[in-house]
Structure formats: C-alpha cells, structure tokens
C-alpha cells in the first residue's frame, strides 16, 4: 500500500465509524407507539431490515473491506516497504481511534460517571427490592428513555475501547494487509492490489 492509500483507508474507517454510531441513534424510533399491533410489527420489521442492510453495508464496505474504495480514491503510487507499511497502517488507524474516541468522550462524560457510580446505586436498589419485594420506582423509565440510556452506554464502551487503541481491529487490518502482501508476492496468484 502507498501512503495516500493508508491515509484514505484511515479516513474511510473514520467516516464508517461515525456513520454507524449516528445510524444507531435511529434505533430510538423503534420505541414510538403505533395505532395497532400489526402496524407496529410491520414498522419494526421494515425498519430493522433497512437498518441491518445499511449497518452491514457500512461496516463491510467502509470499515472492514474498504480496500477496493481505497484503491479507487488514492490510485497507485510508490509502495511502502512492509515494515513502514505496518507502521503507517497501525499508527493511522490508532489516530483515527483516538480522535473519534475523544469526540465521543466529549458528549459522554455524564454517562461514564453514571457507569462508575452505578455499583453504589445497584446495592441500594437491591436492598430496596429485598426489603419491600417491589420493583423500585426509580427504575421505571419509558422505552424511549431506556433506548437512550442503552445507546449512551454502548457509545461509552466504544469510546473507551477506541481510546484504548482498538487493538483487535488493528490486528485484523494488519493481518489482512500482511496476507495481501504475501499474496501479491506470489507470481502465480492474481494480484489483489492494482
């Protein structure tokens, strides 16, 4: 891969990540009520099928298998040697992870603090349930509130994971990159990189 291709790959990964996080926000609309059950079910099935198609397409085309797009965007050029290629790929993906992690963190501080202090709440809630044998009123939220809380919780986990450096994904990308390099070195095999 060339330097420009690696930069394009990192940018596409960033766009894909932010697209998926923004797309997941629309899951909130599942909690809206409908006039009858049939309409409600139809809407859920329709929404989920469209959502899954979009999410899988974005994850596959922009994050995991974005090389075809990278080659179209960045074109060809002087390829980096394997050692420098690894360094460029690893560091550019790590930078994307750090940047998007910080962007997510900027909106999620209250959620992260709530997660940290949640064991204290859980203890008092467990005591309440055991003492009064009833479901605590403080836990009664509307489906809409639950959906926002779950969304923020998952976003907080993603933010921490990205700030940690996204190791599994980077390892996966490096192994794919390595496999392709080996594949291209084999003269009998058809080249993937153009």
């Amino acid at each position, binding site marked *: 891969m060339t330097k420009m291709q690696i930069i394009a790959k990192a940018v596409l990964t960033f766009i894909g990540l932010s697209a998926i996080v923004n797309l997941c926000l629309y899951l909130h609309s599942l909690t809206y009520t409908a006039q009858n059950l049939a309409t409600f079910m139809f809407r859920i099935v329709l929404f989920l099928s469209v959502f899954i198609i979009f999410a899988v397409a974005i994850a596959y085309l922009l994050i995991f298998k974005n090389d075809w797009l990278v080659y179209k965007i960045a074109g060809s050029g002087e390829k980096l040697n394997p050692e420098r290629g690894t360094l460029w790929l690893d560091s550019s993906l790590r930078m994307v992870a750090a*940047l998007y992690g910080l*962007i997510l963190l900027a909106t999620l501080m*209250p959620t992260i603090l709530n997660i940290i202090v949640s064991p204290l709440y859980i203890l008092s809630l467990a005591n309440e349930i055991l003492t009064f044998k009833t479901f605590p009123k403080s836990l009664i939220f509307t489906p809409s509130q639950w959906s926002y809380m779950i969304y923020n919780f998952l976003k907080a986990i993603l933010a921490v994971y990205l700030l940690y450096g996204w190791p599994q994904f980077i390892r996966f990308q490096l192994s794919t990159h390595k496999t392709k390099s080996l594949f291209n070195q084999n003269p009998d095999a058809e080249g993937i990189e153009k």
Partner: protein
Amino acid sequence: MNKMHTLTKIILSAIGIFFSIRLLSQLPYVILMFYLEPSRQITGLSLFSLLLVTGAIAVLVYIFIYKRENLAQKIVGSERLPEPGSQIGWLPVAFRLICIAGGIYLLSNVLWHTTYIINMLAKFKAETYSVNGTTYTRFFTNFAPFSFGDLLPWTIMLICGIYLLCGAPHFVRWQVKKTLQQCKINKQLQEAS
C-alpha cells in the same frame, strides 16, 4: 523549517478556523436571548455570554492562526527533526495534534454548557408570597444551576480538555509505545511465517 513544521502549521490553522466557526454558531443564541426577554438582568448576562464566546474565539484565532509558528515549534520540537517520511519522527506530533483538536472540542462543549447555565440563570427568578402572615421565598426554575451532580461531569471535561490542550504527554507517550509494540509483534510474526 521542514515539511513537518509546515504540515503542523496547516493543521493548527485548520483546527483554529474549524472551532472558531463552531463557536460563532453560539452567538445568535446569545443575541436571541436578549431579544426574547429584554431586561437589565438578561442584558448583563447576555453580554457576559457574548464576552465569553468572543473571548474564546479571539484566543483561538490568536493562538492557532497568528501564533501558530510558535505552537508548531513547541509541538514538533527541534527544527532539525527528520522529515515525515522517516519512520517514527512524525508519530508523536500527529498524536499531539489529535489531542489538541480533542481538547478544544471538549472545551468548546464546556463553553456551550457554561453559556447555557448563564442563560438559565437569567430566567432564575425569586418570588415572595405570604401564607398566614409568614413570608416565603420561592425560586421558579426548572433547572438547578448549582447542583454538584450536574457540574461534576463538566468540571472533569474542563480538566480533561486542558490536559489534552497541553498535548496530553502521558497519553501520547502511551499511544506511541503501543504502536511501536504492535509493529514489533507484527514484524516478529512476519519473520516467523
């Protein structure tokens, strides 16, 4: 001046322009607040919000556009550094720039919240009424501006923002170390296969 300095200066200018525009979008709200409820108290608080936002924009423009040379010097370090193409010389610089951008993003969110609190304070009105000869004072607001529970996340964000704006040395060092470790492991795996 090498390529890395030039690149850093361009990125710093871009950061400055982007966040100045982002903060500029806050100004209409502050002015609108005054038009909706014109009173002495609201005028004072609107002016204070206006001062905060314009002050932040002025600081951004001064540091990231006029004084970008000095900032680039501090971020990159010595001018005799290798060019970007040479292995790891550019790695801490890039991470530091990301931290600065992240820090300004956090601080701009804190500033937004601060102006929001100021606007809420403007609506914070006390009313006195008497029942059976006793006078009571009641505060009419749907917002508690001095709740520590609400202020804590924003205080932490302010601290994190300042730390990131200073270049987040520990975070950058850790990220660079992890990147190099990953590359080393990958090289060993390549050699083994």
